[in-house]
Structure formats: structure tokens, C-alpha cells
């Protein structure tokens, strides 16, 4: 089974006047999820997070009304079809009860296959990020448990004379012998699934793209010396790509000259409503949905940027974030961003603005959103960048009526650490590697 983390976003348009009722329903379901965490975990074993919310109407570029919507966004592991089946099986009735408010929900939906078909049909593209790649939900608690047990064991052994003088290899053997003796840890012997296929799958689109560009460049060079016309035409792909990119940048630069309309400051009342909901002790969630700045190029450029993020997703890194996604709605006129992260949003937002690198990367996406700081050539930031960014996030932040998290206790660093510990069990390592590995316990 694949262990790639993915996102699913299902959305429909709904009448604005229905939102109050839908919100009440979502909040009721939210309470149910909170009260029945174990049941959710058991029945949705592939699901890490669910954010389910309504989005009121928004105004895009002077008077274009973007419709109210319902958004269901999940972060899951593995096969998408299997995940949709899991959702429909366990949450089917609730999904139907909420989506029925939309005229896009076919009245003919009467059974599971119909509902699955509806979910598939209303799924949209997104750029997805995971901060703890290749860890399936069912591994989370058992990796923590085995690490805790090993710590207790070693902590006891510490008192034995000479134990702390043992070589790293001997310590590792001690640990592995201990685990072998514990019946409940029999699963460890099966080892971890090789990540090679999943890594290959994640890198494949980027590989294909680079291969295509590389081939084109080679063909272009060869066409100078060799006659076949095909070489010339294939060789044109690479320069054509660069020219297209240049044209898009110029177009964007012209658009950037439009007068910048900053967001009004977020009111205290609104901020209080938001922060009141993020009091979970380890993880919290943030949803930011904003119309884009005026201009077709903004929609095109953001669309391309999101595809680029998908292409390089394997290498991207955002500290403290468990999962995040960016997507466009309503013909590309709306940007949706959600993140599940450690601690609270005021701390999390600093991850973006406090580092020059990330501040630049963030501009690639958020500079297209209405009211967010103006840029030059996409990434060159202007004055008051930080203040306007922080304000933009708050102004466009939405309240998520339903939020479910499979893991509520472990930070992203905890998850990675526990996995690193488990992965190295019964594997050959040299002394230095073992010393480093022991630090994960």
C-alpha cells in the first residue's frame, strides 16, 4: 500500500442564506467527532485531518461576486479511491446531510456508489504538502509506544554497572533483543515498507519534466550539427518554455503596477473569534481563503505556481507544519490555503515572515491574493511586507466549523523522531550512525 500523503478537496456552491443552518450542522458533527475520537480513528484509518467549513460570498475585483461554498478537505495516506470509500462508508450520512444543501448535490443520490461518484466529481486540484512524509496513521501510536517502552527499559539498565560503557553496537543489540522478547512488538519484525516506490512516484512528474527539458536542450544543440528536422522541433520546447515564462513574468510585472489596495485591519472581534478556537495543546488548524487580485495573469500565474509546488513537493519544507494545501476555486479567482500545524497560529505565521527564504517563497503564492503585500517581479517585497502579510492572513482567515485530527498529541518533530527510531531497528548501522540514532529515544 502506498504511504504517500495526499489531500482531497471536495467543494460545491451553496446559497448564502443556507450557511447558518449548515454551520450549525457542521458544529454538531464537530462535537460528535470530538466525543467519538476513537470511533473516527478506527473507521477512518487512512485519514489524518479533516477540515470542513462553509465559505461566505466574497467579492473579486470590483463587483464580481464569488459564490458561497461548502469545502470538505482531508489529508490522508495512500490510495485516493480507498480513502473516498472510507469517507463515504463512515461519514456518508453526514456528508450527504451537509452537501444536500447545495443544488449541485444530485437528488438521485441514494446509495454509496452514488455518493462516491458525487465526491469524485466535486474534487478539485490542489498543491499538497506533508511535513512527515510516508508515515501511515496506524504507525503513529505504535511507534510512540515502542520508543517509550525502549526508553523505560534503557533507563532501568542505566543503573547497571558498566552499561553506559557498552559500545553503540552492543546497546543496539540490547534494544533489539528486548523488542524481540515483547510479544506485542512482533509487528516490528516485519520491518518498514520500502519507500523507494513511493519516493519514485513522488519524484516522477519532476523527473519527466526535467527529462523533457533536458532532451529538448540536447536536441537543440544536436540540431546545430545534425540534419533531422525532428531534432530542431523537439529542441524548440526548452526555449519556448523559457520564452513563455519570460512573457508571463513581464505580464505579471505590468499587473504589479496596478495600484495596491491593502486590506483593512482585521478587527479585534474577528481575531478573538479565530484565536478562541485554537486552544488545542499541540496542533491547531488554519484556513485562509481570499479572492485574487484583479487580472487574468494573477489566475494563470498562481495556477502555474501551484503546479510547480506539486512538482517539487518532495523537497519542500515548512517547519512545524503537519500538512498544508493551496488551491484555486471559481475559475481561479479564489485562493484557498489550509494548514495543520504545531502550537498556535500567531507562532506559526512567524515561520513565514521571519525567514527571508520562506518570505520569498510565500510571496510566490500569497502576493496574488487581494490585499496581500505588493511585490515586484513576484518575489521582491515592498515596505510593510510583514505587517500586511500578518494582517492579510487574519482578514481572510475563516472559521472551520468541523476539524478532526487523527493525532492530537505529537508534534511533527515527534512524529519524525519516532519514525526514525523505528525505521532503524534491526538494520545494519555503523557506530556513529547508532550514536546519532540513540538520540531519537
Amino acid at each position, binding site marked *: 500500500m502506498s504511504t504517500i500523503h495526499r489531500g482531497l478537496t471536495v467543494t460545491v456552491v451553496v446559497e448564502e442564506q443556507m450557511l447558518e443552518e449548515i454551520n450549525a450542522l457542521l458544529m454538531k458533527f464537530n462535537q460528535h467527532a470530538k466525543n467519538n475520537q476513537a470511533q473516527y480513528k478506527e473507521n477512518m484509518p487512512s485519514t489524518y485531518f479533516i477540515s470542513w467549513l462553509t465559505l461566505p460570498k466574497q467579492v473579486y475585483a470590483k463587483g464580481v461576486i464569488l459564490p458561497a461554498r461548502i469545502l470538505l478537505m482531508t489529508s490522508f495516506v495512500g490510495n485516493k479511491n480507498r480513502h473516498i470509500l472510507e469517507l463515504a462508508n463512515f461519514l456518508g450520512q453526514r456528508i450527504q446531510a451537509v452537501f444536500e444543501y447545495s443544488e449541485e448535490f444530485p437528488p438521485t443520490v441514494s446509495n454509496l456508489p452514488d455518493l462516491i461518484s458525487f465526491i469524485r466529481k466535486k474534487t478539485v486540484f490542489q498543491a499538497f504538502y506533508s511535513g512527515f512524509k510516508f508515515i501511515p496513521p496506524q504507525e503513529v501510536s505504535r511507534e510512540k509506544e515502542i520508543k517509550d517502552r525502549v*526508553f523505560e527499559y*534503557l*533507563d532501568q539498565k*542505566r543503573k547497571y554497572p558498566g*552499561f*553506559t560503557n*557498552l559500545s*553503540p553496537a552492543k*546497546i543496539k543489540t540490547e534494544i533489539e533483543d528486548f523488542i524481540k522478547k515483547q510479544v506485542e512488538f512482533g509487528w516490528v519484525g516485519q520491518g518498514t515498507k520500502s519507500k523507494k516506490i513511493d519516493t519514485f512516484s513522488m519524484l516522477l512528474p519532476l523527473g519527466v519534466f526535467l527529462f523533457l527539458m533536458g532532451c529538448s536542450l540536447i536536441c537543440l544543440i544536436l540540431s546545430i550539427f545534425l540534419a533531422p528536422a525532428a531534432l530542431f522541433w523537439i529542441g524548440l520546447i526548452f526555449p519556448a518554455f523559457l520564452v513563455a515564462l519570460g512573457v508571463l513574468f513581464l505580464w505579471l510585472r505590468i499587473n504589479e503596477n496596478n495600484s495596491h489596495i491593502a486590506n483593512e485591519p482585521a478587527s*479585534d472581534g474577528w*481575531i*478573538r473569534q479565530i*484565536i*478562541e478556537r485554537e*486552544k*488545542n*495543546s*499541540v496542533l491547531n488548524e488554519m484556513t485562509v481563503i481570499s479572492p485574487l487580485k484583479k487580472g487574468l495573469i494573477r489566475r494563470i500565474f498562481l495556477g502555474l505556481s501551484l503546479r510547480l509546488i506539486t512538482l517539487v513537493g518532495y523537497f519542500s*519544507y515548512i*517547519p*512545524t507544519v503537519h500538512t498544508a494545501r493551496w488551491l484555486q476555486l471559481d475559475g481561479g479567482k479564489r485562493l484557498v490555503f489550509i494548514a495543520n500545524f*504545531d*502550537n*498556535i497560529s*500567531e*507562532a506559526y505565521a*512567524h*515561520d513565514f*515572515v*521571519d*525567514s*527571508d*527564504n*520562506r518570505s520569498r517563497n510565500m510571496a510566490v503564492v500569497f502576493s496574488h491574493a487581494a490585499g496581500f503585500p505588493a511585490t515586484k517581479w513576484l518575489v521582491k517585497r515592498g*515596505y*510593510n*511586507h*510583514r*505587517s500586511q502579510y500578518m494582517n492579510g492572513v487574519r482578514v481572510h482567515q475563516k472559521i472551520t466549523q468541523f476539524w478532526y485530527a487523527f493525532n*492530537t*498529541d*505529537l*508534534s511533527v*518533530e*515527534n512524529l*519524525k*523522531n519516532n519514525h526514525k527510531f523505528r525505521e532503524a531497528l534491526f538494520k545494519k548501522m555503523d557506530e556513529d550512525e547508532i*550514536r*546519532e540514532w*540513540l*538520540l531519537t*529515544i
Partner: protein
Amino acid sequence: MTLELNDMQGLLIRGFGNLLGAQYILLRFSDVALGKQYVNELLPSITPATDKPSDNAVQIAFTYAGFSFLQLPSEGLASFSREFREGMTESHRQFILGDRGENAPENWAWGNPAQEEIHLMLIIYSKDSETLAEKLLFEKTRADKFGVVELHSLPTGLLRDHKEHFGFRDDISRPIIEELVDNPVRQEGVTFPAGEFIMGYKNLYDEFAPAPHLPVILDPENILPKAPDFADKKDFGKNGTYLVFRQMEQDVFGFWDYLKSQGKDKEEAIRLASKMVGRWPDGSPLTLTPDKPDPAMSTSNAFGFWKEDKAGLKCPIGAHIRRTNPRDHLVTERTQKDSLEMAAKHRMIRKGRPYGVPVTEPLQPTEIMDLPRDNEKRGLHFLCLVTDIRRQFEFVQNNWVNFHKFGGLEHDADPIIGNHYKSDTVISDEFSIPEYPIRRKLKDMPNFTVIKGGSYFFFPGLRALHYLATHE
């Protein structure tokens, strides 16, 4: 940009270390007109940053309630930061600061607005205790004359060798304001533009720190300077800043009793305590001298963690100095540059002083451990100056000091100043010490410091004080 030192209160650029006596007086106005007259009469006595007095210095700061009472125009009041307006004890601020349980405002001696409303604070520095007593009496008489009521008078006392009550050398790492240095060279994490700590100047984001302001029309006497970000506003914040005050009571005997219980002898107790702090009692940093203290390094501050100690084998990741100033290594960052940039954005200028009688002098841990518990109250009056309470003070307190998952840890708040407790969802009373072959975990730590009072103040420039005293 040149600093307008003649418009600043002196504490912004110096600690008045030559004035050994100091007292923090918390006051409340009882009448608006008299209150303004009081500020007006006091104004010439306020020590500006251009003076380096040898006898007395007087500084003044206001709470939001104080500004409201003196009827600062509503536009001005609304332009203060939300944190300042809400105050330290508002429920979300409490959550951010981790002020729960023992540390909850209900247990404070002062600063809980449910019990009393503080309007202003006078800080008096004097060369010795006699001069201080005289000055306090003088200021008490002045306050009485204008119906300004003294609520609390909090004494301080500097300890020998720059120590705090647990016996560790304190206040070694201090940010340097670039504008105060000749030919400054920006050194990430060491030097800072003035705007990080003083309003009216550019900060690390190359922006003017958000500052309180007023419509031009409300300043007919043209007392205040123009606001840098708004053509139609006057800058009430220029040459001022926010002042955070927390009274942290230290349980010296509890601290060393706990460490004795964890170590086989005094030497080990001191080693464990040093791991908690990140420096040996004499101040020498574990990162540079991990096995034993080195008095030659007692004020050493030129070190990082990225190259020297990424895993925390010398100075644990969760040690106090690594949380309050992670320097060039944050576990969640992938590069030294990003770590440096992140850490630099959350620094403060500390100006506090200890209070209470030391358990012994000099404060040698070996001696402290032999002493029987006494009933004295002692601790630290923590004062810090920041232009952004949320980004600087609250961020550090929330994300680095109290977040039990800091740096990949599991159940660890700051071992010295963190709030240690167990609840249904959080355990924060452990301390991890990376060691070979297995980390050592200290468990069930009680609180070694407890908050006994606190408030957010604004520390205005002199023109702003003049405006406050004379506005219609």
C-alpha cells in the same frame, strides 16, 4: 537614523547599574485633572537618555487603564497594540503566557484588574538605600498632593557578582542597538536596529514598528512628531516602547532540594542545574566548556549551537538559555541562516532586578544546598522593553518557554521559568538531557519560579509625556 536621546527615558539605553537602590511603585490616579497635573509636575524629574545621573533617576510607565483614565483621545487609545489594550490577564493572553495553576492571576499579589486597577509605575533608582528612602518619601509626598494613590511599592536588591537567587550569573546576553555603536556592522542575533526596541525607528523587517498615533488635529500645540507611516497622524509612540513587567518569585530551596534528590551528590546537583540553565553558576556556557566551569568564560557570549552542539549533548535543547535565545540553532529549521533569522526576530532588552534577601552571600550553590529553608520571599522583577509585545515577549513565552513540544521534545517546558504541570492533555514537568547511551529525563519537576504579579506598560518618550500632561 540618529536616535533622539533627549526625547527618550534613560532606561531605554542604560540599566542605571551605578545606582544600586531601586524601587518599583505602582500607582493609581483618582482624578483626571490632578493626574495630568501630576504628570506635568513630574516631567522635569524624568531622567532622559542623555543623562547619566549619579544620585537619582526617575522613570515612568503607564498601563492602558492609566492612559484611558487620563482621557488620552480614543483614536490614540485604539492605536495601541491589542495585547497592550487587553492586558496581561485577559483570558487569551493568559493562555498564551501559560499563566495557569499556581501562575494564574487569581494568585497574584498585584496586576489582577479584578482586584485593583494599576494606572502607572514609577521606577526610582538611587545611589544607595538612604538616598532611595529620601527619594521615595519625596515622590510619595508629590503623589499624595495630586491624589495619586500608591498601590504597591516593590523593592529590589542587586545581588553580588550579577547573580540571580538560584546562584547563577544572569543577564549576560544582551542585544546591542546598532544606532548606539560607532560604525555598526549588522551581526545577526547580536546587533539590532533600534526599531526592535524603540518606536519611531526601523526594525529587523525594515519597517517602522507599529506605534500608537493620533490625528494631527488632536495635537494643536504641535508637541508630537509626525507618524512615519501615516501622513495625517502624529506619533505618540516615538522614542517610547512597551514595557513588560512580571514579578517572578523564585523557590531557591525547592530548586536545590529537587536537584539534590536527582543527583548522587552536590557536584551532580550542580551539573544538572547547569544543564537546566545552559551555563555553569559562574556564567561560563556549557557549549564552550561542557565538563567544568571556566571562570575565564563567565561572561562569554560569542557562541552558537549549530556547529558546536546541534544534538544538545553539551547544552540540552530544552535548557533555559536555548529556549529564550536559540541563537543559530532551532531544531525545526534546516539551515543555520534560517535559525539565526528566526531567533533574532524575538529578542528583548531586559532591565529587571532581583528582589528579596539572598539565602546566603556569595550565592554559592554548594552553600545554598546546606541551608535550611527560610520564609523569605525572593525572586526577580523581570522587566523587558519591546516594540511588539506579541512578536517578542509573548512569542518567546508561548512558543519557546512553555510549549512542551519545543525542539522535538515531548513533555518539557523551560526547566527554570516554565510552568510545570500535568493535565489531561499536557505534561510539561520533565527535562531531557541528551546523554550516551540514553537521554536522562528529570521528571515531576515542581515550579521553581512562580508569577506573583505582572502588567503591560507603555514607556513613553518625553514629548508624549508632555502631550499626555497637557492635552485637552
